[in-house]
């Protein structure tokens, strides 16, 4: 393999360092494909950290396996790249052990809803105070284009060349019915909007579920493309209070491209709070 050590990269890095919010970026260059939606998610993440003035050493990002798994290595903070589907259990243990840290868990659609799908209901019902960001590109990217739990019905993929026989999951509806106390959606092409929901989710004292709609530019040429997303994404058409479960459920059903906060339960106590109360 040719070592990528060109002048262009050095110049680019210098530019990056000069920009204030990119102090949250590590010195390692992302390994994602050019044009990947994940770059946008990272930008929003860095900006959110900057605006909240989080201390680098007090941020912990826990990831699973897949393209999203590499996320922590690109953040100038503590990070733990764990096992496929297991970012939630590790992040839960970490947060309960170290309530002083700001803990993020990141996962892709295969990671969070496929192999790790069994953990989501429990972290939601327990309401452990971690911010969970779902990098949802509706395909397995790192293994090169197989169907995931959010791949549309009948879409042709490398594991289903004549069409996906499985119906996709609706991540927002799942999170709502599992009892997540903060449920939001962002779009990889809108870093400002994502930054807002990431900040709100981080400040929310409990489990925050944030789905990001993002394209896989390499293995999905027909469905969740930049073009399709740009045409369809719109701000959620519902009350910004977002305190009504019924409205949120209806929006989850009827607004598959709506971005913003679906639901937040401000009064719900976090798991740590509940434990402290029970053991007082």
């Amino acid at each position: 393999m040719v070592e990528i050590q060109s002048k262009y990269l050095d110049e680019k890095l210098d530019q990056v360092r000069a920009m204030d919010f990119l102090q949250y970026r590590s010195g390692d260059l992302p390994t994602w494909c050019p044009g990947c939606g994940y770059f946008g998610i990272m930008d929003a993440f860095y900006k959110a950290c900057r605006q909240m003035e989080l201390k680098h050493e007090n941020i912990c990002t826990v990831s699973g396996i897949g393209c999203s798994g590499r996320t922590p290595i690109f953040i100038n903070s503590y990070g733990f790249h764990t096992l496929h589907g297991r970012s939630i259990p590790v992040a839960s243990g970490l947060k309960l052990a170290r309530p002083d840290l700001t803990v993020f868990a990141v996962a892709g659609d295969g990671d969070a809803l496929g192999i790790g799908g069994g953990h989501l209901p429990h972290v939601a019902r327990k309401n452990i105070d971690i911010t969970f960001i779902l990098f949802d590109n509706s395909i397995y990217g790192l293994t090169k284009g197989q169907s995931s739990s959010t791949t549309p019905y009948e879409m042709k993929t490398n594991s289903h060349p004549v069409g996906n026989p499985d119906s996709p999951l609706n991540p927002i509806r799942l999170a709502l019915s599992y009892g997540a106390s903060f449920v939001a959606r962002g779009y990889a092409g809108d870093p400002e909007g994502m930054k807002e929901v990431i900040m709100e989710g981080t400040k929310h004292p409990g489990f925050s579920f944030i789905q990001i709609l993002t394209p896989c530019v390499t293995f999905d040429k027909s469905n969740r493309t930049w073009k399709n997303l740009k045409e369809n994404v719109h701000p959620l058409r519902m009350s910004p209070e977002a305190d009504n479960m019924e409205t949120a459920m209806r929006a989850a059903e009827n607004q598959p491209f709506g971005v913003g906060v679906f639901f937040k339960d401000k009064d719900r106590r976090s798991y740590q709070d509940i434990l402290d109360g029970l053991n007082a």
Partner: protein
Amino acid sequence: MKDINIVIEICGSAGEGTISAGEILSRFMSSQGYEIMSFDSYPAEIRGFGKCVAHTRISSSVINSPGKLADVLIALNDGHSISQLSALKKGGILIYDSQPAKPHEEDKSVLGWADPSVVSYGVPLAMLAQKAAGNLRGRNMVALGAIAALFDLDREGFTDSIKARYAKKKQIVIDSNVNSFLEGFDWTKDHIEKKDTFTFDGVSLEPRGEKLIINGNQLVAQAALDADLKFYAGYPITPATKIMEILSKELPGYGGTLLQTEDEISAIGAVVGAGYGGIRAMTATSGPGFALMTEFTGLSVMAEVPAVIVDSQRGGPSTGIPTKTEQSDFNAALYSGTGDCPRVVLAPTDTASCYDATVLGLYLAEKYQTLVVILLDFFLSNSIRNIDTPKKPGPQMLNANVNPTEEDLKDYKRYKFTDDGISPRAIPGTPGGISFYTGLEHDERGRPDYSDKGHLAMSEKRYRKHASVLKEAPAPVISDFDGDRADIGVISWGSSAGAAHEAVATAKKEGINAASFSSVMLYPFPDEALIEFAGRCDNILIPELNFQGQFADYAQGVIKREVTRLNFITGRPMAAEDILDKMREM
């Protein structure tokens, strides 16, 4: 002084108070100064009419195994006791219900099936219980009364043990039990003439109250609390559940957190997360749960995050036999998962060492930033011993993390190469220690590195920890040799070790030239000591409770010669008699 050694079994149906009666017997005999070792077997089902046996060995000297056959069988239930007669010695004692509430057909009576050599005493258990408390529930206490009267045990002292057992119950419950006991005691004194030769007379032991009467699960939990455990995550599974239940009560008072998770994958995941956060964390499980935890065993070793798993082994594979004891997770504990994955495995050899192994396990995990598996088994988890209160760990066992120096933090490398394999660990939140942990192969900074040199260097680093661990591991227990050599060397591990050491001591008295070796440290194993020991023995015998001889396979690989194996998987623990019989054959 005379050596007294009596095994009493109480056999009944689930719900008849069999296990409680055994507990009270143990408590009382311990208070009288005896060594006790008791072990219950019961069905996996909560309700129904499954067979329960409370097995108690009572001795005037130190004992290390539960004894194979019973001297006394108390039959609370005739049907179940008929099948238990095979575990009663020739010439033993049978106590049965002479006036059962529902009369038996002739072929269903335990008396009819007993060996002619057995001395039997009929006591109207049901009738006396009815008389004492107005219902049949106190039959177990009547039986204890009969035993106490037959062996001339202290009537008042026994009453105190019953009161202590039910101290938290309503007065009426205490009274019913005590009255049933007294009814049984007095009736037996008045009506039964002792015809057997078993006796507790002839020894003078100091009565005492201060010994702990405790099982392995309780000791693991206590040790964890004393060793600064701050996080426990778990999922219920027999026979490890009790550890979680004790900690759920106690851990918050010690400033810790208990998390009951949705499965064992999540349990070990949370333990790894908490360990990564810099506090002491553990989980406890049994075979099926350990199987699920396998993927995290690799991550703990690869990412170098402390984690402790207690695996209380039961009959396997798969769901197996949940309430029977076995030592068949040796291979799983050492080799679970993929790749070259050096972890630490400890196996306590008796009840008391469950405490020490847990303290050591939490210490080693933290210091060496790796996975420690502690292998108990159903027998160690549940068998009850009277032991001295364990000594609490000192500060050197409690703060074991190798923190980075200021110099280290100037250019921090999470996976820095060192001679002992330990890289200074910056806990998240440490300024200057920002680092990336991963299950991918990596370089010193944690960046993915798939180069052949890098993989080799990191593998060597991880295995260097083994050499370092061995330096501070407890030394193997080796019996004295009579002269330079032994005809038979018995090598044992885990709960079979007590029986092995006892068998060797008895064999020596019989004139067999034997020696004994056991090690709590299973991985890394003290190979050099093993080679030296084996070199002095003409024959090697390895007893263990599994089908394959999993440890024997390991030992053969080390000492490079065939060993004699003693394997059985009947679900009962290893007894000294089993090993002795084999030694006599050799």
